[in-house]
């Protein structure tokens, strides 16, 4: 119960309003709908009881030693990120509609946009969307609007969660063709053929792809753009500490899952949709954008800008219906990148890459475990265990509380013995030892 009014307050306010009872205030509501009975909670919990109840619930979760990535990555969340983002001045503010009273928040968003643009080497970024999947879906919709074309080519090694989200967003209005990757990366010959159709709005490729493998993005982008088709890159932001950024291969749109930038796993959210594009597509961008300006004394200031794209102005002709975004997550990502700086980011990316190499090394000491694709990867790779992996995963989880990785059987028969294993900065040699030991025992 967080209401402020005492019984006396209520009485005196009702009197001032000029009614004798609260019911008079709501007399437009048909009486038969009023005051229904509820049965969701017999007794309100006090604060201490809430803490106890939620501690009990939390204790029923048993997070394992985790080697699953597949689009959500276990990250170390730096103390400063947590500390600053919990400050009430940021936590309890609303969207900065009143610029003069929101300069702090607006500047953090401007800086977030700058940091993301620097990382992706793209021209412009918005203030955030819901997550990587919805960012990609919005990029696809923008590409369809720009080109007026209705076919989309999508790598079959795009995270399946993303592909499904795109399908819901385009909702039958576009044809989605998949680009096969029999060798763990996009086949550029097939891409060339598919692009002949002439009705293609965009090509979507994720890097690293769903199997953790690094694609030849410069080449794919070149082929795509040479046919006048828009290229959409979906990139993991931490990998960009090492890998060529989307701007360097002239992606038209570049999106990504910002959870990697210092956000907890939180069972799926809140995450952070990174959305960037070339400046010529600025007016097709969904969501809020902050710009630098000056106040009437000429002092630097920040405002929400280019708002004519947005739902509250343009209504049914808006570029998207998005209103609430993930501002606090963008703040966290901004603090994270500011703490890292260019050197820290590279260290972090290197550490991820090396941990994955170390994990693979440890695993393949076992003759039964083989790397499925001999291709460069970032922090995730696919191994073949020579036996069906989904039952094995459950068994080892139960016996050792280790989640060995994501079984890939859902991708088809040829993957039924495959496992997608991820090692971020949070893992070390000892963890790989435990993983290898558990597999050794069970294979």
């Amino acid at each position, binding site marked *: *119960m967080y209401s402020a009014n005492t019984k006396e307050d209520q009485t005196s306010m009702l009197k001032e309003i*000029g009614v004798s009872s609260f019911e008079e205030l709501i007399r437009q*509501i048909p009486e038969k709908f*009023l005051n229904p009975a509820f049965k*969701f909670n017999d007794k309100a919990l006090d604060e201490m009881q809430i803490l106890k109840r939620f501690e009990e619930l939390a204790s*029923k979760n048993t997070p394992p030693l985790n080697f699953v990535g597949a689009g959500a990555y276990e990250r170390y969340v730096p103390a400063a990120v947590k500390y600053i983002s919990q400050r009430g001045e940021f936590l309890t503010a609303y969207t900065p509609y009143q610029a003069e009273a929101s300069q702090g928040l607006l500047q953090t968003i401007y800086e977030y946009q700058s940091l993301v643009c620097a990382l992706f080497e793209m021209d412009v970024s918005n203030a955030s969307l819901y997550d990587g999947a919805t960012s990609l879906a919005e990029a696809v919709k923008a590409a369809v609007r720009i080109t007026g074309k209705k076919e989309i080519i999508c790598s079959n090694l795009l995270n399946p*969660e993303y592909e499904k989200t795109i399908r819901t967003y385009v909702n039958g209005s576009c044809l989605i063709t998949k680009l096969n990757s029999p060798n763990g990366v996009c086949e550029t010959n097939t891409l060339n053929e598919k692009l002949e159709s002439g009705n293609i709005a965009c090509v979507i490729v994720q890097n690293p792809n769903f199997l953790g493998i690094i694609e030849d993005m410069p080449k794919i982008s070149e082929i795509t753009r040479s046919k006048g088709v828009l290229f959409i890159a979906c990139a993991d932001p931490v990998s960009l500490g090492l*890998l060529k950024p989307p701007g360097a291969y002239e992606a038209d749109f570049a999106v990504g899952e910002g959870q990697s930038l210092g956000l907890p796993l939180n069972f799926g959210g809140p995450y952070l949709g990174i959305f960037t594009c070339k400046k010529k597509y600025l007016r097709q961008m969904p969501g809020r954008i902050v710009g630098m300006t000056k106040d009437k004394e000429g002092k630097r200031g920040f405002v929400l800008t280019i708002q004519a794209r947005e739902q509250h102005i343009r209504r049914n002709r808006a570029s998207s219906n998005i*209103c609430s975004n993930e501002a606090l997550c963008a703040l966290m990502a901004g603090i994270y990148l500011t703490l890292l700086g260019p050197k820290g980011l590279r260290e972090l990316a290197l550490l991820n890459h090396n941990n994955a190499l170390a994990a693979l090394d440890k695993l393949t000491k076992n003759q039964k475990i083989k790397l499925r694709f001999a291709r460069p990867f970032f922090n995730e790779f696919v191994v073949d265990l020579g036996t069906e992996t989904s039952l094995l995963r459950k068994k080892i989880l139960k016996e050792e509380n280790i989640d060995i990785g994501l079984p890939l059987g859902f991708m088809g028969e040829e993957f039924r013995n495959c496992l997608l294993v991820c090692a971020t900065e949070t893992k070390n040699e000892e963890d790989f030892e435990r993983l290898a030991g558990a597999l050794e025992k069970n294979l």
Partner: protein
Amino acid sequence: MIENDSKLSIEKSASGRRALVFNARNKNGIKIPQHLLRDTEPLLPELSELEVIRHYTLLSHKNFSLDANFYPLGSCTMKYNPRINEIVSSLKNFEDLHPLSDDACAQGTLELLYHLEKALCEICAMDATTLTPAAGAHGEFTGAAIVKAYFENKGEKQRVQIVIPDSAHGTNPATSSMLGFETVEIKSNEKGQIDIETLKKALSERTAMLMLTIPNTLGIFEADIEKIVSIAHNSGVVVYMDGANMNALIGILKPGDMGIDLMHLNMHKTFSTPHGGGGPGAGAICVKKYLEPFLPVPRVIKEKGMFRTKSDCPLSIGKIKSFFGNTAVLIKSYAYILSHSNDSLSEISKNAIINANYLLKKLGKLYPPHNREYCMHECVLSCPEELLKNQVRTLDVAKRLLDFGLHAPTVYFPLIVKEALMIEPTETESKETLDAFIQAMQKIYEEGKYHPETLKKAPINLATKRMDETFAARNPDLRWESKKTCSSKV
């Protein structure tokens, strides 16, 4: 001139300075071909940890927030965000859970989500709930996709229109377009309510859905709601309720009882989760039984005493984002619900309504109200004629409020009211705070009448004066491009 306190982090950067360090364990080197590697360092700032903390702390001081300021934004429900909710949602075993974890590892979270769904069904008299939408507008998108799938499954593909009152939030028509529906806007009557005859004319065998905000954006409950719903249902039209204003109804009325077929709830409004400067939120969708098969996946179910996620739902609209919803936000909202009982839930809306009517009564004398009758949880006023005559507009009133340490109400919305000020005090504000707001508004009225230049200049007391928004739009500067000059234009 750039004052020291608005320096960007990049402008404070010094080459070689470090904050967060990861000890290298890089014995394996880089096994990636050179041509796929980054060849330039990204332009990120280089600061010490103290400098980072100080940078952001000073920025936080340049910001109004609910914790420090009365924040009566209409339609936004800026109520207190209980801190216990922050504590419980960040318990380690909640935070550390991977969304693709085996259900066996996630029993606590799944149990919580399952019971939250049930509680929302009970609060709204609906049959099934999905917690996956990330925000209110995302919920609307989900709802419209559900209705589209429902009619396609029923073989009524000709239903391609959504009927929306002109008082609706912009998200409603934008949602309609996103899914390829045609928007049919209906004009409200002079009371700001739906005109029955206009509605009848707008509905046809081509209508899929009627989208209603209840109470509407003028803070008025549609007195004819029974008739409206029955007219829609008789035309085979699904009735959607935008639940953005549920803070007016919670505990005193269940939308499902009025015949609403589906609705969304904003956890960051009615259920007290913080707005975070614009998000994250969460936007549950509650539906009647017949729409349940179309809900997005994954669902949360209980089977043989175990909680699990289910994705094999053949009629489902599919996925609306990756993985699950904004779980941490949902945990907070469940803590908020459990801090209320069956009997005390109505105290929320009751106090919200009393507070709004108190403001309406006191301010309505000077600022003409759109509606002379009682309001629900928010009221819509206009800038007085006496002030408009002096070239003082609503925007000036809003900016002047900032000088008193009070956040402005929502302005120029709803669009159907000229010079609108939309005020939603919420139940967590005290009478004393409301009185201080009333006093400030009275003073602003006097100023507007006798010293209009004061209002035109406002804010006066803030470090930042009136912003040049036109300059920003004409000269988009949306990011830094180098360490020194930040004025190069895109």
